[in-house]
């Protein structure tokens, strides 16, 4: 279980990205984080695996206080938290295989990995994950020769290599068109349902939230303004989260 208590993040330039945010995520949930750009969604996700250091507050995961861990202890925790990014964040010039294998870096011997050595086990696992995402024939091409949707699937495969208990997905479909958005979210849903991986996913579109998430929280200017089931987001709630001028748009 992931428990966030009074989380606040103030950037050095004075921007307050998160104000006193508290919520809980039960194991096996698919929690959607919604809000406008700049509402603090990305900061929130990155505070959980401490890619961004929180200013104050507490993050507890299965009884461990993450905010109190040293950098090297935190690295061990990160292994169990996969992350998927809006811009995919693949190493474009490396092969798909190398990108996927890099998900194992937290587990393997640092010295062997410096020479691009991964065990046969890891290679097998990488191929299995690629197959699961329908990319087995793309294993040895350069990452930047893939389309956007394929690149995001590589990103998911990389996260799966970590054998994560939790996946943090930061706007995983914001750079993709609607058809691909559904395909990517279906994969995340599958990981959530079949493997029991908890998913924390920030999303723009309410339709996608309704369709995939089991629960949602709404952020506005760094504060939680909504917590509940996706179906509970009515027009009034919608306007609190997205502002008075916002219109609902439907994709597919």
């Amino acid at each position, binding site marked *: 279980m992931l428990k966030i208590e009074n989380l606040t993040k103030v950037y050095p330039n004075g921007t307050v990205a998160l104000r006193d945010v508290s919520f809980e995520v039960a194991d096996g949930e698919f929690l959607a984080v919604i809000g406008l750009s700049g509402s603090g969604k990305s900061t929130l996700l990155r505070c959980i695996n401490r890619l961004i250091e929180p200013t104050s507050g507490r993050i507890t995961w299965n009884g461990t206080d993450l905010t109190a861990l040293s950098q090297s202890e935190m690295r061990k925790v990160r292994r169990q938290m996969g992350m998927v990014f809006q811009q995919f964040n693949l190493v474009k010039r490396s092969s798909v295989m190398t990108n996927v294998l890099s998900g194992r870096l937290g587990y393997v011997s640092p010295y062997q990995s*410096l020479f691009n050595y991964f065990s046969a086990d890891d290679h097998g696992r990488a191929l299995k994950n690629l197959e699961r995402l329908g990319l087995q024939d793309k294993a040895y091409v350069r990452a930047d020769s893939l389309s956007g949707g394929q690149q995001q699937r590589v990103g998911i495969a990389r996260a799966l290599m970590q054998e994560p208990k939790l996946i943090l997905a930061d706007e995983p479909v914001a750079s993709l068109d609607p058809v691909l958005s559904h395909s990517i979210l279906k994969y995340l849903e599958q990981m959530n349902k079949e493997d029991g991986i908890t998913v924390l996913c920030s999303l723009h579109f309410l339709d996608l939230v309704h369709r995939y998430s089991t629960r949602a929280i709404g952020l506005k200017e760094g504060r939680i303004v909504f917590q509940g089931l996706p179906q509970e987001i009515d027009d009034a709630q919608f306007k609190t989260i997205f502002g008075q001028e916002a219109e609902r748009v439907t994709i597919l």
Partner: protein
Amino acid sequence: MDTSSPPRSQNALLASVLSLLIPGAGQLYLRKHQRGLAILAGVLVLAYLINWTLKNFALEEIASWLWLLFALFWAWNILDAYRLARGQTTYNRLGLLLAIVIIYVIGWCVTDINLDRLVTRFQDVQVVFRALVYPDLFTQEGGTWQPSENFGDIIGKVVDRPAPDWLVQLGLAQKGAKVPTPVPGKMAETIAIGLMATFLAIILAIPLSFFAAHNIMSRVPGGTVIYYAMRTFLNVVRSVDTIIWGLIIVVWVGLGSFAGTLALTIHSVAALGKLYSEEVEHIDPGPIEAITATGANLLQIIRYAVIPQIVPPFLAYTLLRWDINMRMATVVGFVAGGGIGFFVIETIRKGGYEQYAAALWVVAIVIIVVDYVSAKWRARILTGEDKVSAEAPKPFYTSLRALVWLAVLLLVFVLCWQLSEIDPRKLFEPAPTFVKVVRDFVTIDLSPDVFDTVLKQMLITIFQALLATTLGGLVAVPFSFLAARNLMGGNALSLVLYYLARGALNVLRSIEALLYVAIFVFWVGIGPFAGMLALAITTFALIGKLFSEAIENIDPGPLEAVAATGATGLQTIVYAILPQIIPPFISYLIYQWDINIRIATIVGFAGGGGVGLLLNTYFGMLQYHKAGTVVVAIVIVVAIMDFASAKIRERLV
């Protein structure tokens, strides 16, 4: 222009009087602050330069002319204030022209230009030109052409030498028996120096560049301090030219190829380190974030998120540096010994012009090849070919081809190591006087007479570079039209002209200014004039190439439009081509002046006058404290020029 302030016509008289008393004061009073200060600075600099010229050089006959021009400039400033106050258009170009004329007259005098010598001593230089046509590379013996002895000295030869121990032990030769042994020539040595320096520079620059990259160091505790220290270190080392490093290194490890290699390496490490670190700073932060999120440590992040992104730009910069190092390797011998530069000094001393000419030709050929390979390879990296394969790639060491390449590279490396006489032990046993020399060197001498001498030679050097840039640029303009593919090639004759022009530019460009100086020393005598002419040749070649490329890159649209109006060829040039190419031309010229000042500081080593001659003299006379003054002066001037030329070019573009 500031249009908000009302015209102060009633104050025109006051403004003029102010400008009469203090140049620029009228303009300042009219709130044209930049203009006023520029005029004031201009008058002060011009007055100082005129005064300095007349004091240091015997030029009574032109003294009154110079002061007359100066008075005209002063008068222009009064007129400018008056017209400015009345809100009339000002004659900016007139003032600029007057200042430029004064500068060039001074430049002409202090660089000791004697055009008559070009004619009266033409007889003497014909010997050199004949040598250039018949270089000492081959001799005719019994009807067949054979490589001459000089060819062997430059390229390499096979000599009978006592068999080395390893041959004896293998039983392939008798002890003491003579076996044919290849002896590499001076050019082979030069190539080895260039390759070895580049190799060593890569190895040292890569780790240093990470310490000088902000995005890496900010992830390490205390990294920011290391970052600033490393940046400063790289900038200081980079601002000292290879040749000057050569002078310093020679004191440390003694004359020879090793000194040349070290000098090149030191400068290259700083230059590459800076470029590499900038490339590291510009990488996409996304993959770093992603790899960090997997729980990887710093080394793994560098290996998997940073290195794959920086390999192509690193390779491209390294190839460019290799090209530069090969060029510098041809001249570093002038001060450090070793390589073709050392050979050239020796042959000139002996008056061996056929040998000198042969060396020039060999240098030209090697550098043209290097230039071509480096450019082609860089282009291939930057376009980036995609490798698509359906199967897992095998490790490289399993392919025979890769093994052969590896063996060849290893062999080249061993050969280069030997030829560049690398001997790390020498680093730890410097000459006994070394500590004293260094102490002498850093206690720079600022006594008035030394300061005056250094300032004088420094100004000469700056003027030398200015005149060389002007002369080279002027000749390059018409020539560059001949070397532009889009203008030439309409018929057979113009195609021939095009190839001739391009070829001439490429050959001339491949030889460093320092190697040309000997020709002009023979022609017009030792001094800044010879150095200026040598610089003008390289300027002409480089600027000619850049100009012709600028012409080739012009937008053909306006060309078509002007031609469609029924304009003649000349009209097309004036109305469609010139407006497009003048801004890049000026930008290139300013950049070239900047480069030329650096080179002008070293042409003195071959008799080209200026501050290099002074530096060479001080080093020769073991007056290291004075040499220190010269080096500091050079570093300051080069840094200022670097900064100023970058600023000016920024405003132009």
